[in-house]
């Protein structure tokens, strides 16, 4: 039951005025009061609770429960205590409010009348939009992918001299600088490191399992073979867990020393085998050659971290 604006308000003993406004509760979103503009006197606007409405016999008329005298007791509307719904945001207000005098219709323009294929035009618009976007997909993909896949770098780098390594079966770090040329940038010198172990035959056996280790390029061709009986073994400085840099450390549990990665605490022995922590595979052996003077050269291979198999990245 919702009263119409401009309906006449009638008490049990006579007509008192017209409904000029309605008041809405912002939380329940229901009409709480009607405002009746008096016919008599100073044409006061009085606020009548919705519960006072007895019935709405027709669209033009509202019957109140009160008498004319009682109607005069209802409070006068204080307009400054209210805002209009245009100045207020109430969710789903329209769904709860039906004070307009019925539906308001707007005709289609003359040219639009009798256009039966409005949905066809709508679909066409979307289709043409998609067709505009389509030719961009492949070029954009290729555009962003340009530097993502690079041929492997099989260059040899000199990293130091094995004469410095005095003891067997401990990790010895060689820091080296190498040129790094990326896309349009001038070549930059970056610092890297590898770990070299002067391995006893047992450790060599643990690393190579008696077999020479072959290294391949992207075509599968062999670029280098590490001999299984070579005394020096070089490990990539990149931790195979998630790519941090590990160190050679002596700890309480491993007084002889182990390779320890400070990131996620992976621990490897002198043969690079995982002894503790979350690493999925052993340290990566690098292609390495040592000349008669003891100078160490390596190919700076990088493998993907975090996987059991060695997947070459660089």
């Amino acid at each position: 039951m919702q009263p119409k604006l401009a309906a006449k308000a009638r008490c049990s003993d006579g007509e008192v005025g017209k409904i000029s406004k309605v008041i809405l509760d912002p939380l329940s979103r229901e009409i709480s009061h009607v405002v009746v503009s008096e016919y008599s006197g100073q044409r006061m606007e009085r606020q009548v609770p919705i519960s006072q409405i007895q019935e709405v016999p027709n669209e033009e008329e509202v019957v109140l429960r009160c008498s004319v005298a009682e109607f005069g007791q209802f409070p006068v509307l204080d307009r400054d205590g209210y805002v209009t719904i245009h100045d207020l945001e109430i969710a789903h207000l329209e769904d709860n409010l039906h004070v307009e005098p019925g539906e308001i219709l707007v005709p289609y323009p003359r040219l639009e009348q009798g256009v039966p294929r409005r949905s066809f035009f709508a679909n066409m618009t979307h289709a043409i939009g998609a067709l505009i976007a389509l030719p961009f997909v492949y070029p954009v993909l290729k555009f962003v992918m340009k530097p993502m896949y690079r041929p492997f770098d099989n260059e040899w780098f000199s990293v130091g001299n094995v004469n410095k390594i005095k003891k067997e079966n401990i990790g010895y770090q060689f820091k080296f600088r190498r040129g790094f040329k990326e896309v349009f940038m001038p070549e930059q010198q970056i610092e890297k490191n590898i770990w070299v172990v002067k391995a006893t035959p047992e450790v060599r056996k643990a690393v190579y399992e008696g077999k020479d280790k072959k290294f391949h390029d992207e075509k599968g061709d062999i670029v280098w073979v590490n001999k299984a009986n070579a005394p020096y073994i070089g490990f990539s400085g990149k931790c195979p867990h998630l790519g941090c840099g590990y160190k050679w450390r002596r700890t309480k549990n491993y007084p002889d020393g182990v390779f320890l990665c400070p990131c996620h605490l992976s621990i490897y022995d002198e043969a690079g085998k995982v002894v503790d922590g979350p690493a999925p595979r052993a340290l990566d052996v690098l292609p390495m050659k040592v000349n008669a003077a003891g100078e160490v050269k390596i190919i700076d291979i990088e493998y993907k971290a975090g996987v059991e198999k060695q997947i070459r990245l660089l």
Partner: protein
Amino acid sequence: MSGHQDPVNEPNVFEKVVDFVDERVGLKTLQAKMLNEPVPGGSRWAYAFGSVLLFIFILQVVTGILLMFYYVPSTDHAYASTQYIIHEVDYGWFLLSYHFWGSSAMVVMVFAHMSQVFLWGAYKKPRELVWLVGLALFGIVMAFGFTGYLLPWDQRAFWATVVGVEIMDKTPLIGDFMARFLKGGPTPGQMTISRFFVIHVMVLPAALMGLAGLHIFLFRKAGPAGPFRGTPEELKAKTDYFFPRQIWKDIVAMASVFLIICSLAFIEPVVLLEEATPDPGDYHPEPEWYFLFLFQLLRLKIFGGEFGQFLGSIALPGAFMALLAVLPFIDTSPERNIFKRPASLIGWILVMLMILVFTVSAIINRDFLD
């Protein structure tokens, strides 16, 4: 109350200009609509988090734009230009440190905001989409933190990115592509800076602005949820409009957060480590504190090995986010009182405890390493 003025005085020039604009734009209606939003059950401090987030973001934009006046996103200049900002540019240290601590404040506020919405049961019908868009915004805030972290190009930045990208690489099917896409190559370098930079200063801000707009629009459409206790009469008696009481609480909260960020910038200004290089030297890589719990989680043996790592770094966080996303659709009971939703309360406490315990143990582990 527009259109209800007493024509006592002739309008002055300023009022004429305002009226001119208002007639064409409808500013007064817009302003009135924004300010006169009924807050069921009345304003509360707990409702300030969303506004504070918007405030922090705006200042991140301002400080971020200023930093770009000097910053050069390249491997040979990123570090030097950041050092220049810190040591040479007047108040550069302050603006950079503000931006740095602002990002932490953003993450803290996101957690507070999400917790409030969760505990109040405000994600439930009809606010499911507000919640979903909010989750996307959470992802964007974390992505902001991750991409911004690389830009100074010091050792901290470099190694956090190396590990972070390796983690993303573990995503099934698209992981390798995603990691190469972000790195712009097989290993981090110039292309990584370029990509992180453009994502940090163009892609993410655009995404955040669009989604935050949608978030607020959907929120206004559904209306505020209000408290989870109280009869309709009690709520009605305490209801007020967004202005002035809630705005007052919001502005006080914003000012407090602003002061805290400024203090942190003064007390702990940003200091860079050595310039980034693939040799960590003596540095023990560590992510920003809000990723520490995840970092510590990955130290556990059960998250070791190829599968364990996938479990810990992709499956578990992914499942947690998926759970949050479907939450409004599986938790369809209209009950919003957190004390009558024991599973939700216990779940929230457990997640917070987990984050706390793992963060603290990561910090304790630092001593063990040195």
